[in-house]
């Protein structure tokens, strides 16, 4: 479970977050949506501990991101905004590296790596160096290394961006599967169709503030728009007034 309370963050003169609050529950997919520059990625970055908040609090399974960063890191799997790979390491070595950083080793780690390679259908690239991987292939490696320690919480920054249809479908299937295992998934997206099809809850962010919060149906109802995209435009104030 992820709890965010009155989160604030500024970069010099830019107020990226001006008091964001929401909760993402276990067994649910929560979509963090909003226009470019709304603060989605900043919120995720604070949650996955690469940025420190200026004010407010954020906690994962009750552990504060500032006071207990190590505990938070043990409980999250992250597909960060930057998802660079090491060109000279193979897919398998990428997954193994992150697994070992989570304290996994030996046969247990190798078993998990094999299962992820199988699950993400990456057999063909498992033992190839990452140099020259396509966007879809890189994404699979990045996802696999985020999942190797079986994290109870998943933070995914635009997991389907730039993927072809088949890869995007596979990724969505994976997200559902993780949700069905009772884990907490928080992800950002731009594609309203995807959000509508995948999310149990939506958090609409605009200008560093939460503009709307609830199920897709609740959002449609509160904005009076039948189409989710229209509802989104209305909630963020980017639509026709």
């Amino acid at each position, binding site marked *: 479970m992820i709890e965010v309370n009155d989160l604030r963050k500024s970069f010099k003169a830019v107020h990226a977050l001006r008091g964001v609050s929401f909760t993402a529950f276990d067994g649910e997919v929560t979509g963090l949506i909003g226009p470019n520059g709304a603060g989605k990625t900043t919120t995720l970055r604070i949650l996955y501990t690469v940025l420190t908040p200026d004010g407010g609090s954020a906690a994962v399974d009750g552990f504060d991101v500032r006071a207990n960063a190590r505990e938070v890191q043990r409980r999250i799997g992250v597909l960060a905004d930057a998802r*660079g790979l*090491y060109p000279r390491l193979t897919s398998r070595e990428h997954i193994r590296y992150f697994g070992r950083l989570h304290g996994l080793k030996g046969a247990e780690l190798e078993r998990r790596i094999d299962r992820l390679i199988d699950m993400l259908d990456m057999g063909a690239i498992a033992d190839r160096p990452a140099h020259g991987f396509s966007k879809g292939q890189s994404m699979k490696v990045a996802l696999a290394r985020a999942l190797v320690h079986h994290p109870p919480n998943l933070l995914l920054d635009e997991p389907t961006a730039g993927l072809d249809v088949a890869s995007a479908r596979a990724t969505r299937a994976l997200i559902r599967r993780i949700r069905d295992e009772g884990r907490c998934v928080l992800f950002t997206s731009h594609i309203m169709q995807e959000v509508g099809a995948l999310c149990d809850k939506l958090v609409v962010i605009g200008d560093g503030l939460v503009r709307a919060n609830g199920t897709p149906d609740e959002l449609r109802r509160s904005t009076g728009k039948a189409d989710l995209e229209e509802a989104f435009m209305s909630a963020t104030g980017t639509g026709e007034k």
Partner: protein
Amino acid sequence: MFDRVWVVFCKEVIDNMRDRRSVSLALLYPFLGPLVVAALIVFVGKSITSAPNATFILPVQGEANAPELIEYITTKGALVVPAPKDPALAVRTGKFDTALIISDDYGEKFDRERQATVHLVVDGSRLSAVIAMSRALDALRDYNRDIGTARLEARGLDPNLSVPLAIEQINVSGGRNLTGFFLNMMPPFLIFTIFVGGVYLAIDTTSGERERGSMEPLLTNPVARWELMVAKVAATFVFTAMAVAVQLVAFKVMFNLITGGDFGLRVDLGFWLFASVFLICLPLMLFAVTLQVIIATVTRSFKETQTYLGLLPLVPSLPGLVLVFVAINAHPWMMAIPTFGQTLLIGQMVRGEPLTGLSIVVASGFTLAASLGLLALAARLYARDELVFTG
């Protein structure tokens, strides 16, 4: 903690080992110093330290004016050749190392036992001309003394009357003569290698990691940032130490080969000396590596990092280059300056001078303390948001 540092360290080492081109280049680089010194010894050293009985070419103008003198200096090894039209020009342009001009009134004055004049054309700015010049000068002085002695004896006087001083040189350079000059070149080259040997890894593991977009995912793992930093410093340290070791071996092999050849060079630098030099360098390697990681952390891009780190090695090498030509009296406080202390210590070691324990303790202690201070600074810099997101 050690588990996590070890995991990151191993990954960095393996990753870097696969970068064949960078690794082989980094291990070829250290050969440059020994090669330069070897070339200097072969080309310059040979002309300076040639055997005392070898012949040297001496162009003479007015040869006919002093047949006795010519005969004398020929027995002293001079190969007399006719002088060009303008001897001064010939020496200035390097056609000849030196030239002798015998004045036209030489014969007349010599016969009347008056002071006769000869001119020796020299170029003091050319190191390679020194040998011919001093051989010619010695031959002329010997002739001067012999004739003077004969003239005094002919008058029944003690020849020593005109030579109040008997000058005997005592050579203190450990019997190595010019060798010391070449040995002095080792410290600056070593310091340079210490600051260059692993620099590509310092850049790749921090600036590179950031630019490649792999820093952000890495930081989401349950590893303290200072642990990541320590692992990266350790990996860079290992490759720096490798480069320094390669250079020391290259120096040893080079000196062995040269000593075997006919270059008038006598060096006896044993294995333990090289091992001790390596140990003396260890704290400085930590200093250099941490400095590199700090620079790679605060700079905004790969390119900027490369610019700074490309210039960095020149600064600590400069004092060593100066010391090749100028000897200084090493005070213990100088040992406290990282890089300068080691430059002095390595210089003393290779020249075979006795080391004091105090110097070693001060040099190593202060450099180690400075390195730990830099490590603490690096840890603080690694903890900032700016590690990933540069302003």
